[in-house]
Protein backbone atom coordinates (compact mmCIF):
# COMPACT_ATOMS: atom_id res chain seq x y z
CA UNK A 1 0.00 0.00 0.00
CA UNK A 2 2.74 2.50 -0.83
CA UNK A 3 0.87 3.90 -3.77
CA UNK A 4 1.97 7.38 -4.64
CA UNK A 5 -0.67 10.01 -3.84
CA UNK A 6 -2.09 12.00 -6.75
CA UNK A 7 -1.20 15.28 -5.14
CA UNK A 8 1.35 15.68 -2.42
CA UNK A 9 1.83 19.01 -0.70
CA UNK A 10 5.01 19.20 1.34
CA UNK A 11 5.75 22.03 3.74
CA UNK A 12 3.95 24.57 1.61
CA UNK A 13 4.25 28.15 2.81
CA UNK A 14 2.44 30.90 0.95
CA UNK A 15 3.40 34.42 1.98
CA UNK A 16 1.85 37.68 0.89
CA UNK A 17 3.71 40.95 0.81
CA UNK A 18 2.21 43.74 2.87
CA UNK A 19 4.27 46.93 2.92
CA UNK A 20 7.51 45.23 1.88
CA UNK A 21 7.24 42.41 4.37
CA UNK A 22 6.06 38.90 3.75
CA UNK A 23 3.47 37.26 5.96
CA UNK A 24 2.65 33.57 5.69
CA UNK A 25 -1.05 32.98 5.06
CA UNK A 26 -0.39 29.27 4.60
CA UNK A 27 2.26 28.13 7.00
CA UNK A 28 4.15 24.91 6.47
CA UNK A 29 1.20 22.82 5.33
CA UNK A 30 1.60 19.21 4.24
CA UNK A 31 -1.23 17.21 2.70
CA UNK A 32 -1.91 14.30 0.41
CA UNK A 33 -4.82 13.78 -1.91
CA UNK A 34 -5.33 10.38 -3.47
CA UNK A 35 -7.02 9.45 -6.67
CA UNK A 36 -10.80 9.17 -6.29
CA UNK A 37 -10.72 10.95 -2.94
CA UNK A 38 -12.44 14.11 -1.73
CA UNK A 39 -10.40 16.01 0.81
CA UNK A 40 -12.28 18.89 2.42
CA UNK A 41 -10.40 21.84 3.86
CA UNK A 42 -12.55 23.67 6.42
CA UNK A 43 -11.99 26.92 8.21
CA UNK A 44 -13.25 30.44 8.61
CA UNK A 45 -12.31 33.43 6.50
CA UNK A 46 -8.67 34.29 6.85
CA UNK A 47 -7.55 30.79 7.84
CA UNK A 48 -5.60 30.40 4.61
CA UNK A 49 -7.77 27.81 2.88
CA UNK A 50 -8.33 29.85 -0.26
CA UNK A 51 -4.69 30.90 -0.41
CA UNK A 52 -3.83 27.22 -0.26
CA UNK A 53 -6.19 26.43 -3.12
CA UNK A 54 -4.73 29.18 -5.30
CA UNK A 55 -1.16 28.13 -4.45
CA UNK A 56 -1.67 24.62 -5.77
CA UNK A 57 -2.59 25.90 -9.20
CA UNK A 58 -0.31 28.92 -8.78
CA UNK A 59 -3.12 31.32 -9.56
CA UNK A 60 -2.16 33.96 -7.00
CA UNK A 61 -0.69 37.30 -7.98
CA UNK A 62 2.97 36.51 -8.57
CA UNK A 63 4.10 40.04 -7.85
CA UNK A 64 3.29 39.97 -4.14
CA UNK A 65 3.29 36.29 -3.26
CA UNK A 66 6.07 33.95 -2.30
CA UNK A 67 5.67 30.18 -2.43
CA UNK A 68 7.96 27.78 -0.60
CA UNK A 69 7.87 24.03 -0.24
CA UNK A 70 6.65 21.48 -2.74
CA UNK A 71 3.42 20.78 -4.57
CA UNK A 72 3.98 17.43 -6.24
CA UNK A 73 1.44 16.41 -8.83
CA UNK A 74 2.06 12.88 -10.09
CA UNK A 75 5.62 13.23 -8.89
CA UNK A 76 6.28 16.61 -10.56
CA UNK A 77 6.92 19.60 -8.31
CA UNK A 78 4.66 22.28 -9.79
CA UNK A 79 6.40 25.11 -7.97
CA UNK A 80 9.57 24.70 -10.03
CA UNK A 81 7.81 24.92 -13.39
CA UNK A 82 7.77 27.94 -15.67
CA UNK A 83 4.39 29.55 -16.33
CA UNK A 84 4.26 27.98 -19.78
CA UNK A 85 4.98 24.53 -18.36
CA UNK A 86 2.45 25.13 -15.59
CA UNK A 87 -0.17 25.94 -18.24
CA UNK A 88 0.15 22.39 -19.54
CA UNK A 89 -1.30 21.17 -16.25
CA UNK A 90 -3.88 23.88 -15.65
CA UNK A 91 -7.22 23.02 -17.15
CA UNK A 92 -5.81 19.81 -18.49
CA UNK A 93 -4.96 17.46 -15.65
CA UNK A 94 -6.05 19.91 -12.97
CA UNK A 95 -9.28 21.86 -12.96
CA UNK A 96 -10.69 24.52 -10.70
CA UNK A 97 -14.24 25.41 -9.69
CA UNK A 98 -14.73 28.87 -8.26
CA UNK A 99 -17.05 30.24 -5.63
CA UNK A 100 -19.08 32.81 -7.43
CA UNK A 101 -20.51 31.68 -10.75
CA UNK A 102 -21.60 35.26 -11.33
CA UNK A 103 -18.05 36.51 -11.69
CA UNK A 104 -16.22 33.34 -12.71
CA UNK A 105 -17.40 33.55 -16.30
CA UNK A 106 -16.32 36.16 -18.82
CA UNK A 107 -19.42 38.30 -19.40
CA UNK A 108 -18.50 39.03 -23.01
CA UNK A 109 -17.97 35.48 -24.23
CA UNK A 110 -20.53 32.91 -25.18
CA UNK A 111 -20.77 29.82 -23.01
CA UNK A 112 -19.57 27.60 -25.86
CA UNK A 113 -16.45 29.69 -26.45
CA UNK A 114 -15.59 29.59 -22.77
CA UNK A 115 -15.80 25.82 -22.56
CA UNK A 116 -13.87 25.36 -25.77
CA UNK A 117 -11.09 27.63 -24.63
CA UNK A 118 -9.91 24.91 -22.26
CA UNK A 119 -9.98 22.32 -25.05
CA UNK A 120 -8.16 24.63 -27.44
CA UNK A 121 -5.36 24.97 -24.91
CA UNK A 122 -4.81 21.27 -24.45
CA UNK A 123 -6.53 19.05 -26.97
CA UNK A 124 -6.02 18.90 -30.67
CA UNK A 125 -9.62 18.87 -31.83
CA UNK A 126 -11.42 20.27 -34.83
CA UNK A 127 -14.10 22.92 -34.32
CA UNK A 128 -16.85 20.39 -34.89
CA UNK A 129 -15.34 17.95 -32.42
CA UNK A 130 -15.00 20.67 -29.83
CA UNK A 131 -18.58 21.72 -30.28
CA UNK A 132 -19.82 18.15 -29.97
CA UNK A 133 -17.79 17.70 -26.84
CA UNK A 134 -19.04 20.99 -25.35
CA UNK A 135 -22.63 19.98 -25.92
CA UNK A 136 -21.94 16.63 -24.34
CA UNK A 137 -20.36 18.34 -21.33
CA UNK A 138 -23.29 20.69 -20.92
CA UNK A 139 -25.60 17.71 -20.97
CA UNK A 140 -23.42 15.92 -18.47
CA UNK A 141 -23.64 18.76 -15.97
CA UNK A 142 -27.41 18.78 -16.29
CA UNK A 143 -28.09 21.74 -18.55
CA UNK A 144 -31.56 21.11 -20.02
CA UNK A 145 -31.01 22.67 -23.44
CA UNK A 146 -27.30 22.43 -24.37
CA UNK A 147 -27.70 23.69 -27.95
CA UNK A 148 -29.26 26.87 -26.69
CA UNK A 149 -26.97 27.41 -23.74
CA UNK A 150 -23.94 26.88 -25.98
CA UNK A 151 -24.75 30.17 -27.70
CA UNK A 152 -25.85 32.10 -24.64
CA UNK A 153 -23.97 34.65 -22.57
CA UNK A 154 -23.45 34.12 -18.84
CA UNK A 155 -25.94 36.82 -17.81
CA UNK A 156 -28.70 34.90 -19.55
CA UNK A 157 -28.35 31.97 -17.16
CA UNK A 158 -29.46 31.53 -13.56
CA UNK A 159 -26.89 31.14 -10.78
CA UNK A 160 -27.30 27.38 -10.60
CA UNK A 161 -26.93 27.00 -14.37
CA UNK A 162 -23.83 29.18 -14.35
CA UNK A 163 -22.23 27.04 -11.69
CA UNK A 164 -22.94 24.01 -13.86
CA UNK A 165 -21.15 25.76 -16.72
CA UNK A 166 -18.20 26.51 -14.43
CA UNK A 167 -18.06 22.80 -13.62
CA UNK A 168 -18.29 21.90 -17.29
CA UNK A 169 -15.28 24.14 -17.97
CA UNK A 170 -13.33 22.55 -15.13
CA UNK A 171 -13.92 19.01 -16.39
CA UNK A 172 -13.63 19.81 -20.10
CA UNK A 173 -10.33 17.96 -20.43
CA UNK A 174 -11.22 15.24 -17.93
CA UNK A 175 -8.79 16.27 -15.21
CA UNK A 176 -7.51 13.81 -12.65
CA UNK A 177 -7.60 16.44 -9.96
CA UNK A 178 -10.01 19.26 -9.11
CA UNK A 179 -10.00 22.13 -6.67
CA UNK A 180 -13.44 23.37 -5.71
CA UNK A 181 -13.24 26.67 -3.81
CA UNK A 182 -16.54 27.18 -1.95
CA UNK A 183 -18.45 25.85 -4.96
CA UNK A 184 -21.91 26.28 -3.44
CA UNK A 185 -21.56 29.22 -1.06
CA UNK A 186 -23.19 31.67 -3.41
CA UNK A 187 -26.13 29.40 -4.18
CA UNK A 188 -29.54 28.78 -2.64
CA UNK A 189 -29.98 25.60 -0.60
CA UNK A 190 -31.98 23.66 -3.16
CA UNK A 191 -29.49 24.61 -5.87
CA UNK A 192 -26.61 23.82 -3.53
CA UNK A 193 -28.03 20.33 -3.03
CA UNK A 194 -28.29 19.84 -6.78
CA UNK A 195 -24.73 21.00 -7.39
CA UNK A 196 -23.33 18.83 -4.59
CA UNK A 197 -25.19 15.81 -5.97
CA UNK A 198 -23.84 16.55 -9.42
CA UNK A 199 -20.27 16.94 -8.19
CA UNK A 200 -20.42 13.69 -6.28
CA UNK A 201 -21.82 11.84 -9.25
CA UNK A 202 -19.15 13.19 -11.60
CA UNK A 203 -16.46 12.46 -9.04
CA UNK A 204 -17.50 8.83 -8.82
CA UNK A 205 -17.71 8.51 -12.58
CA UNK A 206 -14.35 10.08 -13.29
CA UNK A 207 -12.53 8.94 -10.15
CA UNK A 208 -11.23 12.45 -9.66
CA UNK A 209 -9.23 13.54 -6.66
CA UNK A 210 -10.83 16.68 -5.24
CA UNK A 211 -9.80 19.34 -2.77
CA UNK A 212 -12.99 20.94 -1.54
CA UNK A 213 -12.53 24.26 0.20
CA UNK A 214 -15.47 25.26 2.37
CA UNK A 215 -16.56 26.92 5.59
CA UNK A 216 -19.71 24.83 5.78
CA UNK A 217 -19.46 21.67 7.86
CA UNK A 218 -22.74 20.46 6.38
CA UNK A 219 -21.19 20.48 2.91
CA UNK A 220 -18.21 18.60 4.33
CA UNK A 221 -20.46 15.93 5.86
CA UNK A 222 -22.18 15.46 2.49
CA UNK A 223 -19.11 15.40 0.28
CA UNK A 224 -15.82 14.61 1.91
CA UNK A 225 -13.86 11.43 2.48
CA UNK A 226 -11.24 13.15 4.59
CA UNK A 227 -11.23 16.52 6.31
CA UNK A 228 -8.47 18.96 7.21
CA UNK A 229 -9.37 21.80 9.57
CA UNK A 230 -7.35 24.98 9.15
CA UNK A 231 -6.81 27.76 11.62
CA UNK A 232 -4.48 30.74 11.21
CA UNK A 233 -2.61 29.24 8.28
CA UNK A 234 -2.03 25.83 9.83
CA UNK A 235 -3.77 22.51 9.73
CA UNK A 236 -4.96 21.85 13.28
CA UNK A 237 -6.73 18.56 12.72
CA UNK A 238 -6.99 16.03 9.93
CA UNK A 239 -8.97 12.79 9.87
CA UNK A 240 -11.44 10.85 7.78
CA UNK A 241 -14.86 12.42 7.75
CA UNK A 242 -16.57 9.86 10.01
CA UNK A 243 -13.91 10.17 12.70
CA UNK A 244 -13.85 13.94 12.55
CA UNK A 245 -17.62 14.23 12.94
CA UNK A 246 -17.93 11.59 15.64
CA UNK A 247 -14.78 12.43 17.56
CA UNK A 248 -13.51 15.96 16.90
CA UNK A 249 -10.54 16.65 19.16
CA UNK A 250 -8.86 19.96 18.52
CA UNK A 251 -10.40 22.81 20.55
CA UNK A 252 -10.97 24.80 17.37
CA UNK A 253 -12.78 21.95 15.63
CA UNK A 254 -14.92 21.37 18.68
CA UNK A 255 -15.71 25.08 19.04
CA UNK A 256 -16.65 25.27 15.40
CA UNK A 257 -19.10 22.39 15.77
CA UNK A 258 -20.63 23.99 18.83
CA UNK A 259 -21.15 27.35 17.21
CA UNK A 260 -23.31 26.05 14.39
CA UNK A 261 -27.03 26.42 14.81
CA UNK A 262 -27.65 22.95 13.50
CA UNK A 263 -30.89 22.26 11.73
CA UNK A 264 -30.99 18.86 13.38
CA UNK A 265 -30.82 19.75 17.05
CA UNK A 266 -31.84 22.87 18.91
CA UNK A 267 -29.79 24.06 21.84
CA UNK A 268 -30.55 27.44 23.25
CA UNK A 269 -27.16 29.08 23.22
CA UNK A 270 -24.42 28.72 20.68
CA UNK A 271 -20.80 28.53 21.61
CA UNK A 272 -18.91 31.70 20.84
CA UNK A 273 -15.19 31.54 20.24
CA UNK A 274 -13.59 34.19 22.34
CA UNK A 275 -11.75 37.05 20.67
CA UNK A 276 -11.38 37.48 16.94
CA UNK A 277 -9.46 35.79 14.17
CA UNK A 278 -6.11 37.58 14.13
CA UNK A 279 -5.30 39.42 10.90
CA UNK A 280 -2.51 38.11 8.70
CA UNK A 281 -0.07 40.67 10.06
CA UNK A 282 -0.88 39.78 13.66
CA UNK A 283 -0.93 36.01 13.45
CA UNK A 284 0.86 34.46 16.41
CA UNK A 285 3.92 32.81 14.91
CA UNK A 286 5.03 30.84 17.92
CA UNK A 287 3.28 28.48 20.28
CA UNK A 288 -0.27 27.26 19.92
CA UNK A 289 -2.01 29.71 17.63
CA UNK A 290 -5.39 28.97 19.13
CA UNK A 291 -4.24 29.52 22.72
CA UNK A 292 -5.38 33.14 22.91
CA UNK A 293 -8.93 32.11 22.01
CA UNK A 294 -9.23 29.61 24.87
CA UNK A 295 -7.67 31.59 27.72
CA UNK A 296 -9.31 29.48 30.43
CA UNK A 297 -7.12 26.55 29.43
CA UNK A 298 -3.90 26.60 31.44
CA UNK A 299 -0.78 27.57 29.58
CA UNK A 300 1.05 24.36 30.37
CA UNK A 301 -1.51 22.40 28.36
CA UNK A 302 -0.03 23.81 25.15
CA UNK A 303 3.11 22.68 23.46
CA UNK A 304 5.87 25.20 22.94
CA UNK A 305 6.25 24.20 19.31
CA UNK A 306 2.95 22.48 18.50
CA UNK A 307 3.15 19.67 15.98
CA UNK A 308 0.59 17.29 14.56
CA UNK A 309 0.17 14.15 16.65
CA UNK A 310 -1.35 10.97 15.33
CA UNK A 311 -3.82 10.25 18.14
CA UNK A 312 -5.40 7.30 16.42
CA UNK A 313 -4.76 5.84 12.99
CA UNK A 314 -4.83 8.62 10.40
CA UNK A 315 -6.30 11.09 12.89
CA UNK A 316 -3.87 13.94 13.46
CA UNK A 317 -4.27 16.79 15.95
CA UNK A 318 -2.01 19.77 16.47
CA UNK A 319 -0.76 20.70 19.93
CA UNK A 320 -1.41 18.81 23.14
CA UNK A 321 -4.03 21.23 24.43
CA UNK A 322 -6.87 19.04 23.14
CA UNK A 323 -6.25 16.71 26.08
CA UNK A 324 -7.10 19.41 28.63
CA UNK A 325 -9.70 21.24 26.62
CA UNK A 326 -13.20 21.76 27.94
CA UNK A 327 -15.81 24.37 27.13
CA UNK A 328 -15.85 27.19 29.67
CA UNK A 329 -18.11 26.74 32.66
CA UNK A 330 -20.14 29.67 33.93
CA UNK A 331 -17.47 31.22 36.13
CA UNK A 332 -14.88 30.97 33.37
CA UNK A 333 -17.30 32.46 30.90
CA UNK A 334 -17.83 35.44 33.19
CA UNK A 335 -14.16 35.78 33.98
CA UNK A 336 -13.13 35.81 30.34
CA UNK A 337 -16.16 37.75 29.21
CA UNK A 338 -17.50 35.28 26.69
CA UNK A 339 -20.82 36.53 25.43
Amino acid at each position, binding site marked *: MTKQPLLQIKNLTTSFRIHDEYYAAVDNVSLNVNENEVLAIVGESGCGKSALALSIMRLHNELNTKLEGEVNFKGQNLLTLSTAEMNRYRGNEMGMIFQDPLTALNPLMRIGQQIEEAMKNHLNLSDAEMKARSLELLKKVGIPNPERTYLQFPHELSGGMRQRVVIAIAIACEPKFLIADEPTTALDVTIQAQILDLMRELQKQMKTGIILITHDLGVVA*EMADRVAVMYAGEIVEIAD*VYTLFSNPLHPYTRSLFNSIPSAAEGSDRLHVIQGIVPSLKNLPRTGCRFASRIPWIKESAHEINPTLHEVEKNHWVRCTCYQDFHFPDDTEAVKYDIS
Partner: protein
Amino acid sequence: MTFLKVENLKVYYPVRGGFFRRVIDHVKAVDDITFELKEGETYGLVGESGCGKTTTGRTIIGLNRPTAGKIFFNDIELTKLKRRDFYQYRKDIQMIFQDPYSSLNPRKRVLDIIAEPIRNFEKLSPNEEKTKVMDVLEKVGLSPESIYKYPHEFSGGQRQRIGIARALTLNPKLIIADEPVSALDVSVQAQVLNFMKDIQKEFNLTYLFISHDLGIIRHMCDRIGIMYRGRLVEEGTKDEIFEYPQHIYTKRLLSSIPQMNPEERIQHTAFRRKVNEEFKNNYDKYFDAEGKIFDLKPISETHSVALP
Protein backbone atom coordinates in the same frame (compact mmCIF):
# COMPACT_ATOMS: atom_id res chain seq x y z
CA MET B 1 -55.11 43.47 19.81
CA THR B 2 -52.65 42.16 17.28
CA PHE B 3 -49.07 43.33 17.43
CA LEU B 4 -48.34 43.19 13.72
CA LYS B 5 -50.73 42.01 11.10
CA VAL B 6 -50.01 41.77 7.41
CA GLU B 7 -53.17 41.30 5.44
CA ASN B 8 -53.36 40.32 1.76
CA LEU B 9 -50.15 42.16 1.04
CA LYS B 10 -49.19 42.51 -2.59
CA VAL B 11 -46.09 44.20 -3.92
CA TYR B 12 -45.85 44.28 -7.70
CA TYR B 13 -43.13 45.81 -9.78
CA PRO B 14 -44.08 47.03 -13.22
CA VAL B 15 -42.40 45.51 -16.27
CA ARG B 16 -42.19 48.07 -19.02
CA GLY B 17 -42.00 47.41 -22.69
CA GLY B 18 -43.02 48.58 -26.11
CA PHE B 19 -42.22 51.86 -27.71
CA PHE B 20 -43.56 54.14 -25.01
CA ARG B 21 -42.30 51.99 -22.14
CA ARG B 22 -45.79 51.30 -20.99
CA VAL B 23 -46.41 48.87 -18.19
CA ILE B 24 -47.06 45.58 -19.93
CA ASP B 25 -46.80 43.20 -17.00
CA HIS B 26 -45.97 42.94 -13.33
CA VAL B 27 -43.37 41.05 -11.38
CA LYS B 28 -45.29 39.79 -8.41
CA ALA B 29 -42.58 40.05 -5.77
CA VAL B 30 -45.12 39.54 -3.02
CA ASP B 31 -48.43 38.14 -4.11
CA ASP B 32 -51.14 38.20 -1.50
CA ILE B 33 -49.68 37.07 1.79
CA THR B 34 -51.25 37.27 5.23
CA PHE B 35 -49.56 36.66 8.56
CA GLU B 36 -49.43 37.91 12.13
CA LEU B 37 -46.74 38.50 14.72
CA LYS B 38 -47.43 38.24 18.44
CA GLU B 39 -45.59 40.50 20.79
CA GLY B 40 -42.30 39.06 22.00
CA GLU B 41 -42.06 36.22 19.51
CA THR B 42 -39.65 35.60 16.67
CA TYR B 43 -41.28 34.92 13.37
CA GLY B 44 -39.08 33.49 10.67
CA LEU B 45 -39.63 34.23 7.02
CA VAL B 46 -37.73 31.65 4.97
CA GLY B 47 -37.23 31.11 1.30
CA GLU B 48 -34.76 31.20 -1.53
CA SER B 49 -33.52 34.31 -3.28
CA GLY B 50 -36.28 36.08 -5.13
CA CYS B 51 -39.10 34.55 -3.09
CA GLY B 52 -40.21 37.93 -1.78
CA LYS B 53 -39.09 37.64 1.85
CA THR B 54 -36.90 40.74 1.75
CA THR B 55 -39.53 42.74 -0.10
CA THR B 56 -42.04 41.83 2.60
CA GLY B 57 -39.73 43.11 5.33
CA ARG B 58 -38.95 46.30 3.46
CA THR B 59 -42.62 46.96 2.84
CA ILE B 60 -43.51 46.65 6.50
CA ILE B 61 -40.92 49.24 7.41
CA GLY B 62 -42.05 51.50 4.60
CA LEU B 63 -39.10 51.16 2.21
CA ASN B 64 -41.38 49.70 -0.44
CA ARG B 65 -44.90 50.74 -1.31
CA PRO B 66 -47.50 47.99 -1.14
CA THR B 67 -49.52 47.54 -4.32
CA ALA B 68 -52.45 46.29 -2.28
CA GLY B 69 -53.17 44.98 1.17
CA LYS B 70 -53.01 46.28 4.69
CA ILE B 71 -50.40 46.32 7.42
CA PHE B 72 -51.58 46.85 11.00
CA PHE B 73 -49.22 47.69 13.82
CA ASN B 74 -50.91 47.66 17.23
CA ASP B 75 -54.23 47.91 15.39
CA ILE B 76 -53.21 51.04 13.54
CA GLU B 77 -53.31 50.65 9.81
CA LEU B 78 -49.89 51.75 8.67
CA THR B 79 -50.75 51.46 5.02
CA LYS B 80 -53.44 54.12 5.40
CA LEU B 81 -51.26 56.64 7.17
CA LYS B 82 -49.90 59.75 5.56
CA ARG B 83 -46.16 59.97 5.28
CA ARG B 84 -45.83 62.28 8.24
CA ASP B 85 -48.00 60.15 10.54
CA PHE B 86 -46.24 57.00 9.48
CA TYR B 87 -42.98 58.59 10.54
CA GLN B 88 -44.03 58.32 14.17
CA TYR B 89 -44.36 54.57 13.95
CA ARG B 90 -41.00 54.19 12.27
CA LYS B 91 -39.57 54.69 15.74
CA ASP B 92 -41.12 51.45 16.91
CA ILE B 93 -40.06 49.42 13.90
CA GLN B 94 -36.37 49.19 13.12
CA MET B 95 -34.33 47.16 10.71
CA ILE B 96 -31.04 45.27 10.86
CA PHE B 97 -29.41 44.77 7.50
CA GLN B 98 -27.49 41.90 6.03
CA ASP B 99 -24.12 43.35 5.32
CA PRO B 100 -22.37 45.03 8.24
CA TYR B 101 -19.78 46.29 5.78
CA SER B 102 -21.99 48.29 3.49
CA SER B 103 -24.81 49.29 5.80
CA LEU B 104 -22.58 51.53 7.91
CA ASN B 105 -21.32 54.74 6.36
CA PRO B 106 -17.51 54.39 6.42
CA ARG B 107 -16.99 58.13 6.75
CA LYS B 108 -19.08 58.54 9.85
CA ARG B 109 -18.01 57.98 13.41
CA VAL B 110 -19.84 55.41 15.48
CA LEU B 111 -21.34 58.27 17.47
CA ASP B 112 -22.93 59.76 14.38
CA ILE B 113 -24.05 56.42 13.03
CA ILE B 114 -25.86 55.45 16.20
CA ALA B 115 -27.17 58.93 16.93
CA GLU B 116 -28.71 59.30 13.49
CA PRO B 117 -32.11 57.85 14.43
CA ILE B 118 -32.13 59.93 17.63
CA ARG B 119 -31.46 63.06 15.62
CA ASN B 120 -34.34 62.20 13.34
CA PHE B 121 -36.87 61.72 16.08
CA GLU B 122 -35.77 63.45 19.24
CA LYS B 123 -34.21 66.76 20.10
CA LEU B 124 -31.35 66.12 22.49
CA SER B 125 -28.42 68.25 23.49
CA PRO B 126 -25.07 66.95 22.25
CA ASN B 127 -24.26 65.79 25.76
CA GLU B 128 -27.51 63.91 26.30
CA GLU B 129 -27.07 62.37 22.90
CA LYS B 130 -23.57 61.20 23.72
CA THR B 131 -24.70 59.64 26.98
CA LYS B 132 -27.48 57.83 25.23
CA VAL B 133 -25.19 56.49 22.52
CA MET B 134 -22.69 55.29 25.11
CA ASP B 135 -25.56 53.56 26.91
CA VAL B 136 -26.63 51.58 23.87
CA LEU B 137 -23.06 50.75 23.01
CA GLU B 138 -22.66 49.24 26.41
CA LYS B 139 -25.86 47.27 25.93
CA VAL B 140 -24.47 45.70 22.76
CA GLY B 141 -21.21 44.89 24.51
CA LEU B 142 -18.94 47.47 22.92
CA SER B 143 -16.83 49.81 24.97
CA PRO B 144 -18.35 53.31 25.30
CA GLU B 145 -15.03 54.79 24.23
CA SER B 146 -15.56 53.49 20.73
CA ILE B 147 -17.92 56.35 19.87
CA TYR B 148 -15.15 58.23 18.10
CA LYS B 149 -14.00 55.29 16.04
CA TYR B 150 -14.92 54.57 12.44
CA PRO B 151 -16.61 51.37 11.18
CA HIS B 152 -13.44 49.96 9.60
CA GLU B 153 -11.82 49.76 13.02
CA PHE B 154 -14.23 46.99 14.02
CA SER B 155 -14.53 43.33 13.17
CA GLY B 156 -17.51 41.98 11.25
CA GLY B 157 -19.32 40.83 14.37
CA GLN B 158 -18.72 44.13 16.12
CA ARG B 159 -19.96 46.02 13.11
CA GLN B 160 -23.15 44.04 13.09
CA ARG B 161 -23.54 44.96 16.76
CA ILE B 162 -23.16 48.63 15.84
CA GLY B 163 -25.94 48.07 13.34
CA ILE B 164 -28.02 46.54 16.10
CA ALA B 165 -27.16 49.38 18.47
CA ARG B 166 -28.40 51.83 15.87
CA ALA B 167 -31.65 49.90 15.63
CA LEU B 168 -32.00 49.87 19.43
CA THR B 169 -31.52 53.59 20.16
CA LEU B 170 -35.18 54.47 19.89
CA ASN B 171 -36.38 51.54 22.01
CA PRO B 172 -38.19 49.86 19.15
CA LYS B 173 -40.83 47.20 19.67
CA LEU B 174 -40.37 45.34 16.41
CA ILE B 175 -37.07 44.59 14.70
CA ILE B 176 -36.95 43.35 11.15
CA ALA B 177 -33.71 41.43 10.74
CA ASP B 178 -32.94 40.78 7.08
CA GLU B 179 -30.29 38.03 6.89
CA PRO B 180 -28.46 39.61 9.82
CA VAL B 181 -25.68 37.01 9.96
CA SER B 182 -25.32 35.74 6.39
CA ALA B 183 -22.17 37.75 5.80
CA LEU B 184 -20.46 36.50 8.94
CA ASP B 185 -18.28 33.51 9.80
CA VAL B 186 -19.94 30.79 11.89
CA SER B 187 -18.21 31.68 15.14
CA VAL B 188 -19.06 35.37 14.73
CA GLN B 189 -22.53 34.42 13.63
CA ALA B 190 -22.98 32.55 16.92
CA GLN B 191 -22.03 35.67 18.81
CA VAL B 192 -24.57 37.86 17.03
CA LEU B 193 -27.35 35.27 17.31
CA ASN B 194 -26.77 34.79 21.04
CA PHE B 195 -26.76 38.49 21.47
CA MET B 196 -30.00 38.94 19.57
CA LYS B 197 -31.63 36.40 21.86
CA ASP B 198 -30.34 38.21 24.95
CA ILE B 199 -31.63 41.62 23.98
CA GLN B 200 -34.92 40.12 22.94
CA LYS B 201 -35.49 38.96 26.50
CA GLU B 202 -34.18 42.16 27.99
CA PHE B 203 -36.27 44.56 25.93
CA ASN B 204 -39.20 42.32 25.07
CA LEU B 205 -38.48 42.69 21.38
CA THR B 206 -40.40 41.07 18.59
CA TYR B 207 -38.37 39.86 15.62
CA LEU B 208 -39.31 39.33 12.06
CA PHE B 209 -36.31 37.20 11.13
CA ILE B 210 -35.69 36.91 7.41
CA SER B 211 -33.24 34.25 6.30
CA HIS B 212 -32.49 31.55 3.77
CA ASP B 213 -30.61 29.48 6.33
CA LEU B 214 -32.91 26.91 7.87
CA GLY B 215 -30.45 26.03 10.62
CA ILE B 216 -30.45 29.59 11.88
CA ILE B 217 -34.20 29.89 11.48
CA ARG B 218 -34.71 26.78 13.55
CA HIS B 219 -32.40 28.07 16.21
CA MET B 220 -33.99 31.50 16.43
CA CYS B 221 -37.67 31.30 15.60
CA ASP B 222 -40.88 30.36 17.38
CA ARG B 223 -43.03 30.36 14.30
CA ILE B 224 -42.04 30.11 10.67
CA GLY B 225 -43.53 31.06 7.33
CA ILE B 226 -42.12 29.45 4.19
CA MET B 227 -42.21 31.67 1.12
CA TYR B 228 -42.01 30.56 -2.47
CA ARG B 229 -42.54 32.72 -5.56
CA GLY B 230 -44.08 35.57 -3.60
CA ARG B 231 -46.55 33.44 -1.66
CA LEU B 232 -46.61 31.64 1.66
CA VAL B 233 -46.70 27.89 1.11
CA GLU B 234 -46.71 26.86 4.73
CA GLU B 235 -46.84 28.41 8.15
CA GLY B 236 -46.53 26.85 11.57
CA THR B 237 -44.56 26.53 14.75
CA LYS B 238 -40.93 25.54 14.53
CA ASP B 239 -41.71 21.92 15.34
CA GLU B 240 -44.60 21.69 12.92
CA ILE B 241 -42.47 22.97 10.08
CA PHE B 242 -39.39 20.89 10.83
CA GLU B 243 -41.05 17.71 12.05
CA TYR B 244 -44.29 17.58 10.08
CA PRO B 245 -43.81 19.54 6.90
CA GLN B 246 -46.84 19.22 4.65
CA HIS B 247 -46.16 21.16 1.48
CA ILE B 248 -43.82 19.60 -1.04
CA TYR B 249 -41.80 22.80 -1.32
CA THR B 250 -41.18 22.83 2.43
CA LYS B 251 -40.09 19.22 2.23
CA ARG B 252 -37.82 19.99 -0.66
CA LEU B 253 -36.26 22.90 1.18
CA LEU B 254 -35.70 20.80 4.29
CA SER B 255 -34.25 17.88 2.37
CA SER B 256 -31.76 20.25 0.74
CA ILE B 257 -30.09 21.15 4.02
CA PRO B 258 -26.81 19.28 4.18
CA GLN B 259 -26.98 16.59 6.86
CA MET B 260 -24.42 17.06 9.61
CA ASN B 261 -23.95 13.33 9.91
CA PRO B 262 -21.69 11.82 7.25
CA GLU B 263 -22.90 8.32 8.13
CA GLU B 264 -26.33 9.14 6.80
CA ARG B 265 -25.36 10.88 3.65
CA ILE B 266 -26.38 8.10 1.31
CA GLN B 267 -29.83 7.78 2.84
CA HIS B 268 -30.14 11.53 2.85
CA THR B 269 -29.30 11.81 -0.82
CA ALA B 270 -31.80 9.08 -1.62
CA PHE B 271 -34.43 10.88 0.43
CA ARG B 272 -33.68 14.13 -1.33
CA ARG B 273 -34.05 12.42 -4.68
CA LYS B 274 -37.39 11.01 -3.63
CA VAL B 275 -38.67 14.42 -2.57
CA ASN B 276 -37.47 16.01 -5.79
CA GLU B 277 -39.22 13.35 -7.80
CA GLU B 278 -42.42 13.93 -5.92
CA PHE B 279 -42.03 17.63 -6.54
CA LYS B 280 -41.83 16.96 -10.27
CA ASN B 281 -44.39 14.22 -10.55
CA ASN B 282 -47.10 15.53 -8.27
CA TYR B 283 -46.80 19.12 -9.30
CA ASP B 284 -50.55 19.51 -9.92
CA LYS B 285 -51.29 18.32 -6.45
CA TYR B 286 -49.54 21.30 -4.91
CA PHE B 287 -50.01 23.98 -7.53
CA ASP B 288 -53.13 25.00 -9.42
CA ALA B 289 -53.62 24.73 -13.17
CA GLU B 290 -51.66 27.95 -13.80
CA GLY B 291 -48.80 26.81 -11.58
CA LYS B 292 -49.88 29.21 -8.87
CA ILE B 293 -49.62 28.41 -5.19
CA PHE B 294 -52.93 27.82 -3.43
CA ASP B 295 -54.15 29.94 -0.53
CA LEU B 296 -53.12 28.90 2.95
CA LYS B 297 -55.61 26.63 4.70
CA PRO B 298 -55.37 25.84 8.41
CA ILE B 299 -54.86 22.18 9.27
CA SER B 300 -54.52 22.83 12.97
CA GLU B 301 -54.73 25.85 15.23
CA THR B 302 -51.20 26.94 14.40
CA HIS B 303 -50.34 25.10 11.21
CA SER B 304 -51.48 26.17 7.74
CA VAL B 305 -50.57 24.79 4.34
CA ALA B 306 -51.20 26.00 0.81
CA LEU B 307 -53.14 23.04 -0.48
CA PRO B 308 -56.39 22.93 -2.41
